[in-house]
């Protein structure tokens, strides 16, 4: 008997899973609203994906297939550790193929393959409050959400345009969910924001350190915040081609050759890149 099987199925006790599922149900019922929950101590440190991990553990069943992504990669230490923990306490199958998985836990990316009905995307969130930059008090931001007073989020974008001539959010560009709540989409690149709009898969977001869960139910409208004369734009990727598989129109990592100073591009989503090569 391996020591891991001493744990309950999916690590948590059943009471903890129930509490998490209740929070998830509430989050799905109020798209974009941050539901507080009793974030548990986890065997990994807060800030390393505990929010996402708790969501995954509360949802996983014996027939599920799990994929874990860390900034586009399946093999990074963090992704592998999370996969091993879930596998070791549940015995379920893991995969690298986004089309094959029922639950995809991800840090900072949405897979390039479009997600299908029935799949669940779990995103790890460091900072769930989109208004925190302009309003440090949680008491105040809760009121602002209640009153749908989002000038602070627009003000932050306006300030960037004043300073740099354009919106300069590198990631975590705020979105308006279902015409009601402004939400932090987690630090995904702007390139991934449109994938949230009317997504066929359920998107759950978990912030373990900040103790918040929120959700975008399938087929929900998600609009990135912008101005009339500064419409939302994704990162410029035109003309970039993956040096390994030749893919275009996907989010790329820039690889700089230090000797020559020339840069090359490569698919950021490693499993997508691999699949393209096989086909």
């Amino acid at each position, binding site marked *: 008997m391996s020591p891991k099987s001493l744990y309950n199925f999916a690590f948590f006790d059943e009471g903890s899973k129930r509490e998490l599922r209740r929070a998830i149900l509430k989050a799905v019922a109020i798209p974009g609203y941050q539901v507080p929950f009793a974030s548990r101590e986890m065997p990994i440190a807060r800030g390393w994906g505990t929010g996402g991990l708790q969501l995954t553990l509360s949802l996983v069943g014996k027939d599920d297939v799990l994929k874990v992504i860390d900034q586009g990669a399946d093999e990074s230490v963090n992704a592998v550790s999370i996969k091993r923990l879930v596998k070791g306490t549940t015995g379920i199958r893991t995969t690298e193929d986004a089309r094959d998985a029922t639950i995809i836990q991800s840090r900072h990316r949405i897979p390039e393959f479009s997600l299908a009905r029935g799949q669940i995307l779990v995103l790890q969130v460091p900072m769930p409050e989109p208004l925190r930059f*302009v309003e440090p008090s949680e008491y105040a931001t809760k*009121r602002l959400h209640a009153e749908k007073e989002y000038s602070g989020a627009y003000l932050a974008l*306006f*300030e960037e345009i004043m*300073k740099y001539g354009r919106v300069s959010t590198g990631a975590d560009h705020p979105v308006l969910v279902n015409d009601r709540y402004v939400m932090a989409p987690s630090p995904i690149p702007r390139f991934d924001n449109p994938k949230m709009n009317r997504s066929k898969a359920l998107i759950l977001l978990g912030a373990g350190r900040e103790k918040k869960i929120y959700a975008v139910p399938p087929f929900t409208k998600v609009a990135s915040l912008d101005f009339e004369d500064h419409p939302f734009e994704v990162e410029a990727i035109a003309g970039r081609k993956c040096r390994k598989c030749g893919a275009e129109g996907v989010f790329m990592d820039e690889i700089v050759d230090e000797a020559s100073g020339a840069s090359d591009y490569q698919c950021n989503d490693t499993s997508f890149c691999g699949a393209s090569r096989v086909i």
Partner: protein
Amino acid sequence: MSDGFDSKALKVDALTKWFGPRCPRCLGGEEELEKNYCPDCGTVYALRDLSLTLYEGEVLGVVGESGSGKSTILNCLYYDMEPSSGSAYLSSFEGGSVDIFSVSAQAKRGIRNTLLGKVYQNPLQGLKMRFSAISNVAEKLIAAGERNVAAMEARAVGLLGHVNIPSFRMREAPEFFSGGMQQRVQIAKALSNNPPILLLDEVTTGLDLSVQAKVLDLVKQIQRELGISMLLVSHDLGVVRMLADRTVVMLDGKVVEEGLTDQILEDPQEPYTQELVHSML
């Protein structure tokens, strides 16, 4: 309103604000209080049944010693503080028929963002110190629903130019500005939505004399050009003499005397007003 709201911009009715638990002694009546303070339970009555009227296009000065409740009036009107009781009516909101303290939080935000402008004594309260001056002015426009960057930028640059902020400093944050400049940014911000009423709380206190004169000039000019009604709180009688058409004198949360500014300053009737005027250097 039956008494006609034609020329009244703002009507405050029996506004009361207390801080503390209250007790049978202070509920028993005013004669039980020491100044505005209940010696038994420690409750402070900052405003007691205060009523005043601000007419269209006029500057109403509010003077009195510190602690007399001047700023509390503005805090209540700008929703920085909740009044304990009383009501207020704006001619620009529902024709003056609805008490602005009785409406929903969203409606209050609307009133604050579109019908009122306030200049705080301390710029820290009125400005986001780390955001550029332009963004500070644009904040009220964004809050009022404007979503066009070019239009907001043009409006902010125009207003900041109007209050003499040099154009090469408009993109800097007010934390790097002098006190007088910060105060002028606040004025530009308060004016951004062309509010019919401006609330000014000790605008020149703490500024040196030449800057004071510039800020006062600016307020006077704005008032002449735009015909905005202003509620001007100050303990500086010189400021009130220069700007205010009418003046109310406050003491311990109540109005003790009210009238034309010249009249109040030249021929004060009440003992407290006489003392105040005679204390003027």
